[in-house]
């Protein structure tokens, strides 16, 4: 793994159970990146941590199912506290349309592979943490992550893996709009 170059103080909150391999790997990745992190079992606990860290530049990482509790309200609270969310949706993508849209509308990153978390961190550390207002909100340009868009295009099925797969996170290539995502999900 390449150590992410840091030019910004970033804090992280990881939401999930400590038994979850994705959570353990993410905590480990954050440590390798020198990013201060805390583990919260659920979004309720995470909200308290967010409020305590208000004003800091941070990221909340967790599975989409965990972060989208309470009708996606957590994404708004995180965003309001200056944190950007990064959610993993590695299964049943087609069935989670509403949740994906809730996340993306608040400027969250949605990834379909755990490995993409590192790329999101690199983006955040290089680009100034939470996304600017013009990148968020309905009617504005929204960001889908490469593998997520790819999965949507393949009908929610897992795409090709390994070298065949376009897993490299290139935000600009997948910059899309809410309307376009609606069309993709509807397809």
């Amino acid at each position, binding site marked *: 793994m390449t150590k992410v170059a840091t030019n910004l103080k970033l804090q992280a909150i990881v939401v999930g159970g400590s038994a979850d391999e994705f959570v353990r790997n993410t905590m480990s990745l954050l440590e390798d990146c020198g990013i201060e992190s805390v583990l919260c*079992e659920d979004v*309720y*606990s995470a*909200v*308290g941590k967010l409020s*305590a860290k208000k004003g800091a530049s941070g990221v909340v990482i967790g599975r989409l199912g965990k972060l989208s509790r309470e009708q996606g309200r*957590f994404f708004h609270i995180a965003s309001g506290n200056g944190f950007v969310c990064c959610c993993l949706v590695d299964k049943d993508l087609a069935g989670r349309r509403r949740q994906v849209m809730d996340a993306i509308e608040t400027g969250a990153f949605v990834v379909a592979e755990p490995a993409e978390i590192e790329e999101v961190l690199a983006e955040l550390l290089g680009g100034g943490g939470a996304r600017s207002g013009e990148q968020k909100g309905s009617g504005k340009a929204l960001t889908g992550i490469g593998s997520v868009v790819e999965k949507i295009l393949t009908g929610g099925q897992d795409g090709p893996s390994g070298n065949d797969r376009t897993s490299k996170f290139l935000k600009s290539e997948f910059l899309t709009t809410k309307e376009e995502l609606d069309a993709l999900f509807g397809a």
Partner: protein
Amino acid sequence: MGAADRPIYPGREGQGILLTGDISTAFFDADDIAAGGCEVCPNMLDAIDAAARKSFAAIGVVMSGTSGKLVSALRALRENCDARIVLLAQMSEEPRAMQLVGASYNGRSVADDYLICPVRFSALLTRISHFFVDTAVRDRLGGGAVGSAAVDAATEKKIRQLEKLATEDDLTGLKNRRYIWEFSRQIIERAKKEDRRVTLLVFDVDNLKHYNDLYGHPAGDEILKQVAVLIRRCCRNHDVVGRIGGDEFAVVFWDTAQRRAGGAQSERRSATADHPIEAISIAKRFVKELGDAELDLLGPEGKGVLAISGGLASFPRDGSTIEELFRQADKALLEAKRSGKNRIYLVGKPQSDISDID
């Protein structure tokens, strides 16, 4: 409500009260609450966020609609603020509210108290104020600037006594008829919405008049108390048990959220009668324990003489209202009596005693 009419909230100077959840289900005067300066967060996550940023004297949490996430949310509130937490429970949620108040988290109870709703907002203020009666705040509130919320410990104690008198049977300590009816009505409404089952057992003590006549009414009272202890011991914590008449008792068996989510075990039915097997098992255990009970007051005659006759009715199978369920269960009870007593009949299955069900 104008600023001058706003109540003086208990708590430290400048602290307010935060309410979370659908307050229209909890308060008769919900419309006036927001106008009165009380902060309201419909969503639990927003409430935790608000509580972490701002100091509140107390937080009222509407339990309805929170289901399984409530414990996690309450723990998060505890971690992030010092406010007192009062659960706003429907009658059917009282057993769970009691559990949460009794449960410990980091050396404190998960919630400080609960209130059965719907109530007026002033009732919550009264309940909250007793947390502060022993603090310097009491002096502020009691020193001539007493607001509607300020009550002393003696008043609070009286209120609790009145609540108890209104809902409990003083002889047995079980719930009274009024409570059983209201609880049943609420739990059936909830069962209709959430596709759950409710089972009602109505029973009375066989030959109580005989014991009263032979040994006197104090002996009859002792029998009723003994029956109450045994039925309560046999039931699950969340089942509601009451004495609804002289020697007549009722038990309301209902599915909690956890049991419903539990899958196959909670979905088991009696093969013969489509009644929940859990309720039948509990009733059978109760009948057995009753038969084994020793009643010293009755002397040599006091062992193995206690028996009951009952009727068991289930929602939605045997009725869609509490009146229908009671009518059906009473009918089955009478059939059990006519058939020789000491048995519990299932509604809709004439001569079907629960002891015949495996």
